[in-house]
């Protein structure tokens, strides 16, 4: 057998994005612990907007992009269209996000414009790369449909962000910047993150739970409801609030079908959930309050419900970002990073050495503990926001920080295999084989 051209692994694209994302999460939580008013105060302030971008762009987007470059080729059953485009995206993202956050913190829109342009160009390359990967050739599945729709939402959200920025720089006029900010936020949260999460789960969960998709119709249905929600949210936010309750209803139906499909897959699985999958599936626990509060908020904005308390948008943001998305994305990271390392370090040694199993790379007890502590921290943060209690938010941020430290300890353990390979001599006599047939 001949060997060995350089390994064309995605590790040097996905792994830096993952590490960049985890560090942003740790930074955001330390900042939140020191300044809980980021969640209990009014949301339209420079520091809150900077904080939202640390979480949204620095943490979530980095992990989604890293996951995309590793997972979507598997989901689409096509090789990644271009590693070079992905590397350029990585550089633009890593350079642009800190500049944007600094610009927002100090309300220097020219700095935001420089960082934002880099991030925007990076995501244009990401969208092109993901779409081109899906199209060579196109296999129409719920995952493909959902990812395409989420890319459209992302394009819209980025366009709105550029419009808001242009207005801040005085290049154009905006009648209602808060409405635009709302359209940007909901297009990202529901149209991109939640839809992307649902779409990817229709490949990821069956793959790890060892069951087929239980209902393709239900999965397509959830994607379609998400699309309807986004299509109605945008004009609802910008011009016709009367559309918002209908949009929220469709979003709730999308989330509901996504939950039912995930629960059906879990209940049919022949295997016990490991820590990473438990953490991933903990996201489902937050979907009901997210859906109910989004519906109530939409009724408020349309004038059909009373304003009971301020901060409902922040509560929805907290539940969706720190609850659903953080559980799902950390869970996904707990599965993907060990695979990346295993593939890079041990796949080339297969057949030549006895290599560790994937489960040998992680601290299983830490991951099992995280499946409880991360959702618990999300609940504490949401309680703090709902009761406007700085102390409760600090407790939530503290628990979250401890969880992220444990997550990073596990990450270091996984990464240690990159510089400390743990293979053993290969014993060919122990290989079990099936019957050998003979073909004339």
């Amino acid at each position, binding site marked *: *057998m*001949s*060997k*060995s*051209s350089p*390994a*064309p*692994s995605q590790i040097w694209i996905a792994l830096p994005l993952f590490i960049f994302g985890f560090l942003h999460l740790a930074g955001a939580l330390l900042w939140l612990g020191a300044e809980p008013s980021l969640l209990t105060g009014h949301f339209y302030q420079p520091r809150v907007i900077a904080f939202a971008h640390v979480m949204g762009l620095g943490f979530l987007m980095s992990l989604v992009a890293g996951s995309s470059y590793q997972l979507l*080729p*598997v989901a689409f*059953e*096509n*090789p990644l269209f271009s590693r070079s485009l992905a590397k350029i995206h990585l550089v633009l993202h890593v350079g642009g996000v800190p500049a944007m956050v600094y610009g927002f913190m100090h309300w220097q829109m020219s700095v935001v414009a420089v960082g934002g342009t880099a991030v925007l160009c990076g995501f244009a390359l990401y969208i092109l790369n993901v779409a081109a990967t899906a199209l060579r050739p196109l296999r129409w599945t719920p995952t493909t449909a959902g990812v395409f729709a989420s890319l459209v939402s992302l394009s819209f959200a980025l366009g709105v962000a550029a419009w808001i920025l242009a207005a801040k720089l005085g290049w154009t006029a905006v009648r209602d910047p808060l409405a635009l900010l709302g359209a940007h936020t909901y297009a990202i949260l529901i149209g991109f993150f939640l839809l992307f999460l649902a779409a990817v789960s229709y490949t990821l969960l069956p*793959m*790890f739970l*060892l069951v087929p998709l239980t209902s393709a119709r239900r999965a397509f249905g959830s994607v379609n409801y998400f699309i309807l929600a986004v299509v109605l949210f945008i004009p609802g936010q910008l011009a016709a609030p009367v559309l918002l309750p209908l949009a929220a209803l469709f979003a709730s139906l999308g989330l509901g079908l996504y939950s039912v499909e995930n629960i059906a897959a879990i209940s049919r699985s022949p*295997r016990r959930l490991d820590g990473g999958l438990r953490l991933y599936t903990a996201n489902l626990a937050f979907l009901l309050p997210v859906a109910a509060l989004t519906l109530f908020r939409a009724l408020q904005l349309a004038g059909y419900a009373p304003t009971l308390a301020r901060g409902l948008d922040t509560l929805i943001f907290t539940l969706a970002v720190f609850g659903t998305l953080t559980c799902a994305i950390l869970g996904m990271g707990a599965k993907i990073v060990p*695979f990346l390392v*295993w*593939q890079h370090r041990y*796949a*080339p040694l*297969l*057949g*030549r050495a006895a*290599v560790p199993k*994937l489960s040998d790379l992680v601290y299983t007890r830490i991951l099992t503990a995280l499946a409880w502590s991360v959702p618990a921290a999300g609940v504490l943060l949401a309680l703090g926001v709902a009761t406007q209690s700085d102390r409760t938010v600090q407790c939530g941020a503290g628990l979250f920080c401890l969880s992220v430290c444990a997550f990073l300890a596990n990450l270091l353990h996984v990464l240690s295999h990159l510089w400390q390979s743990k293979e053993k001599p*290969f014993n*060919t006599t122990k*290989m079990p*084989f*099936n*019957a*050998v*047939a*003979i*073909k*004339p």
Partner: protein
Amino acid sequence: MSRLLVHSLDLRGLEPPEPMTRIIEALATLPAGTQIEARLERRPMFLLEELKRRDQNHTCEPHPEGGWRLTVPIAAAP
């Protein structure tokens, strides 16, 4: 006519990267002249990369009953 030994593997229902491990370990231990025919749930993107990296001939095509069929002939050492 020479006879072809075919080693069949049904790797559906295995968590990644188990299908990759089983195929490459079979590749390393089966005698030259054998052909591995594996049935898989989904197209094994990372295994295909690894086979390409090892300059190992292979074909991967959709199976008529669903999933994918991977064929890997093991050539005699030069």
